[in-house]
């Protein structure tokens, strides 16, 4: 045994090194694009890589569009920036490289953003999903519930069992708004519509997403919505011959027979005017919460098997929303029978952020 110890140590070391060599490139921040010139430099910081075809992909698509549209900006996307204190180093480096605007695309960067922003008041920071606001920090998010309402209208028209399903990640405010809006939309065209939601307590776990979707089908749901991150739900829906509503990006290629439409992020709706305002010196930091009207959230293309008359109805509701009609307009009862929004009233943004109840028709 002692005879082979040195060799053993070397081998252990070699194995460890090998695993390091293998995992480090994946963790290292990699530059997507850089270009020189006298333009306004804008950096986009991503927590994972853009290949997720979900959240980060949607931000990077917007980055490309904005760079194309606004002649005065020059952008760079940085992938795989860890959410912990390493983010501080990356943000500081970006400031030193002369970036005027730094866009942080994760909830988990909030604290770091504020910390770095305080040190560099001449640089602007934008943080998505958070609600932090400072002299040079704005935050932004989208009203996915508006798109979910329209998806709900379509679901209400397509369901045969009058029962919708929803696979939720975590039961937080925006998630609950999405679920409520989905059913409210369905009830506009189908008063008998009910909804069952299953929370899987994670944003990301294909096996759980799939099992939750199958469970909903088992209890009779035939149109499934979700706010989790993988295509598992659509694949499960297609295997059971029911419909689903996509999320983040167009999911139809994963299950062309199941996906009816989808809730898609189109962040250029925020980035374009905001970067323009910063460039012109008119930007006022705020906690922005835009919707369909602002072009931050949109609908994926309708599946080609949906009858034209049904699409027409959805488009009518879309036109109403775009004309300013609110989704949460009274009377709205919760599923305990309590009147939450009286006739003739609707919920303000501040009230919306406090919603923690389910609308009538959501099954316990």
């Amino acid at each position, binding site marked *: *045994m002692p005879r*082979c110890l040195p*060799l*053993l140590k070397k*081998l*252990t070391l070699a*194995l*460890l090194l*090998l*695993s390091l060599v*293998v*995992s480090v*490139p*994946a963790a290292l921040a990699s530059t997507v694009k850089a270009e020189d010139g006298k333009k306004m430099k804008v950096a986009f910081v991503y927590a994972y*890589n853009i*290949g*997720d*075809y979900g959240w980060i*992909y949607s931000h990077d698509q917007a980055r490309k569009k904005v760079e194309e549209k606004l002649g005065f900006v020059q952008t760079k996307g940085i992938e795989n920036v860890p959410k912990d204190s390493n983010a501080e180093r990356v943000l500081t480096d970006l400031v030193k490289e002369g970036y005027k605007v730094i866009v942080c695309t994760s909830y988990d960067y909030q604290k770091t953003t504020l910390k770095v922003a305080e040190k560099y008041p001449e640089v602007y920071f934008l943080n998505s999903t958070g609600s932090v606001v400072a002299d040079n920090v704005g935050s932004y998010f989208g009203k996915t519930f508006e798109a979910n309402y329209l998806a709900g209208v379509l679901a209400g028209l397509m369901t045969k069992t009058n029962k919708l399903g929803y696979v939720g990640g975590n*039961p937080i405010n925006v998630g609950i708004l999405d679920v409520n809006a989905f059913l409210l939309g369905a009830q506009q065209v189908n008063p008998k519509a009910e909804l*069952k939601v*299953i*929370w*899987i*307590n994670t944003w*990301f*776990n*294909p*096996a*759980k*997403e*799939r*099992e*939750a979707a*199958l*469970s*909903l089908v*088992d*209890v009779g749901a035939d149109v499934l919505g979700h706010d989790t991150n*993988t*295509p*598992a739900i659509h*694949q499960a829906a297609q295997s059971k011959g029911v419909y689903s509503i996509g999320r983040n990006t167009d999911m139809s*290629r*994963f299950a062309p027979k199941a996906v009816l439409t989808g809730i898609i992020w189109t962040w250029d709706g925020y980035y374009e005017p905001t970067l323009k305002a910063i460039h012109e010196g008119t930007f006022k930091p705020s906690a922005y919460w835009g919707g369909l009207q602002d072009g931050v959230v949109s609908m994926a293309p309708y599946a080609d098997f949906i009858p034209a008359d049904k699409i027409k109805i959805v488009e009518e509701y879309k036109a109403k929303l775009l004309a300013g009609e609110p989704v949460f307009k009274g009377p709205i009862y919760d599923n305990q029978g309590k009147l939450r929004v009286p006739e003739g009233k609707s919920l303000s943004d501040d009230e919306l952020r406090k919603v923690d109840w389910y609308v009538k028709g959501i*099954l*316990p």
Partner: protein
Amino acid sequence: MDALWGLLPNILAAGVAAGTPVLLAALGEIITERSGVLNIGLEGIMIMGCVSAVMVTLDLHSPLAGLAAAMAVGGIMGLLHAAFTITLKGNQIVSGLALVLLGSGLSTMLGKGVLGQPVFDLFYPEALPWLADLPYVGGIFFKHDPLTYGGILLAPLVWFFLQHTRPGLLVRAAGESPETADSLGAPVALVRYGAVIAGGALAGAGGAFLPLVQTPSWVEGMTSGSGWIALAVVIFARWDPGKALLGAWLYGAVQALGFRLQAVGVPIPSQFLNMLPYLAPIAVLVITASRSRGQAIAPRALGLPYERESR
């Protein structure tokens, strides 16, 4: 509650399918451990199985080729483990952990190119003629994909191999008393190599199940703990392939049960229901451990490198 009884066949059917990746990995680990080698790197091998199955299937449009690739990659990782622990007599725990780290890092890197691409060439469920029409059990056992049938068939085969064939006897001898086996002229190192490589290949097959049957695309970290569950199942099964079948089904069924309980509206917090699949194996382990009262149920030479000189 009545609604739940009605769902019972669905829960059991879902459990049989969901248990397959765990079952395949556990059967492989039983062969490995019965030969005296502990391989805790299943999670790393399975995730490599996932990514290689996706890459090859996308390229060659054949799920069989994907499965073969996953098994080959699993076998190679088994070979690594064998070389480190049998020839170099390294620490089996350290080597196993290294496989887990290696698998998670390497799969992330290799998978970059296929991330988000749907796989369409899959193992689809096929109802077995007339068996599927049997009342109740037909729906539970005979409407599955070929890999699930394979796993179910493999359990008795592995049992037969270990208990009633000469190579199986050699495997058990290498795990119970390598000195005796050696003194009778059995090639202990060779037998252990074979067992570890076979175990790796089966864990790779378990990994391939996830993208080729369940969720047809590559997603980073998609095994989400199945490899660790398989290790628990081996102990629960007391190294017996038949009981491993039960253990894997139990895990699958408990996971399926949790979501059905939510779906029919049983007022239990979702967080607790989501904990059940992990809690159940622990509970069963505690019960089996307390019953066995320290009796030797593990292969006697498990985890010990065999050195002829120290006999």
